[in-house]
């Protein structure tokens, strides 16, 4: 897999993000992305790839690894796709709005059950 981003001409990164330098939506590394549409002709090739990869829920960080692009670039492309209604995003839910930032104990119980069953 080529490691794009590191040695690549920054102009190329701008082309990928269509000149955008900032994501309009917030995507966590583990936000799960799901396609809401099949790729159509004329779409940017990376966008087509994302839509194919996300036929099943796929985390932002997995997409970045699959596309060989830095997470930042993928976030910007995802927010474009989200704005167009081509994907949906399932954001992480850990604390149910707790002020102390600790995860919800019910969630942790589920995690423990899952780990013990490994």
């Amino acid at each position, binding site marked *: 897999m080529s490691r794009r*981003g590191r040695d690549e001409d920054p102009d190329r990164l701008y082309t990928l993000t269509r000149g955008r330098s900032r994501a309009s939506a917030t995507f966590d590394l583990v936000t799960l992305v799901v396609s809401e549409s099949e790729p159509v002709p004329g779409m940017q090739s990376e966008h087509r790839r994302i839509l194919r990869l996300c036929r099943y829920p796929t985390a932002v960080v997995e997409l970045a690894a699959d596309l060989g692009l830095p997470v930042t670039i993928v976030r910007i492309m995802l927010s474009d796709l989200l704005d167009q209604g081509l994907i949906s995003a399932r954001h992480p839910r850990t604390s149910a709005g707790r002020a102390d930032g600790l995860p919800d104990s019910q969630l942790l119980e589920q995690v423990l059950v899952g780990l013990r069953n490994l």
Partner: protein
Amino acid sequence: MDSATSDRPAVRSHLGSQASNGLKIVIVGGFGVGKTTMVRSVSDIRPLNTEEIMTRAGQEVDDLTGVTGKTSTTVAFDFGRISLNEKTVLYLFGAPGQERFWFLWDRLFSGTLGAVVLVDTRRLQDSWYAIDRLEHHGTPFVVARNDFGGPAHTHEQIRDALDLPADVPMIDCDARSRASSKSVLIELVTHLYRLSTAREGARAGAPGAVG
């Protein structure tokens, strides 16, 4: 990636269509301490590698403005994945422990459940900075001693060397072993559970929850 020893298929399995909640645990430690080994031993998939663009100042990175200049750098990190149930997926991130990567951890730690500090008793000082940073962020963590067959130290000695608070759990492990790495994760989540229920109990004024 050392794929020769892996029994996992080359093509990565996809998550179920009901998967809706991605969780994060960070494994941090010095170079060569076994972070990727631990990720590999418990992950459902072969560890993947990706990278993030960081400005040298450690600024927010959702912004490409700095990418064209000399102010940005990229940092690579490994991660793996464990499906816990049909809805919940746990991602494990291996983060380099050197001080110069602090901005990557700040990024990774945001929203993480907690962290495992993996230590090699021959190089305990490699963990000092990571522990400082976790405490600064208020990110709960456990310390796992990866067994490299070095001289035996008691947990007391390690706690002293790391200046570790008494309430931070410590566990011995072999990062190559799935069962052992799994126990480390269970130790961390049990610790989180205790912290979380203690706070919930304190809020509800339940007896016995103080402390």
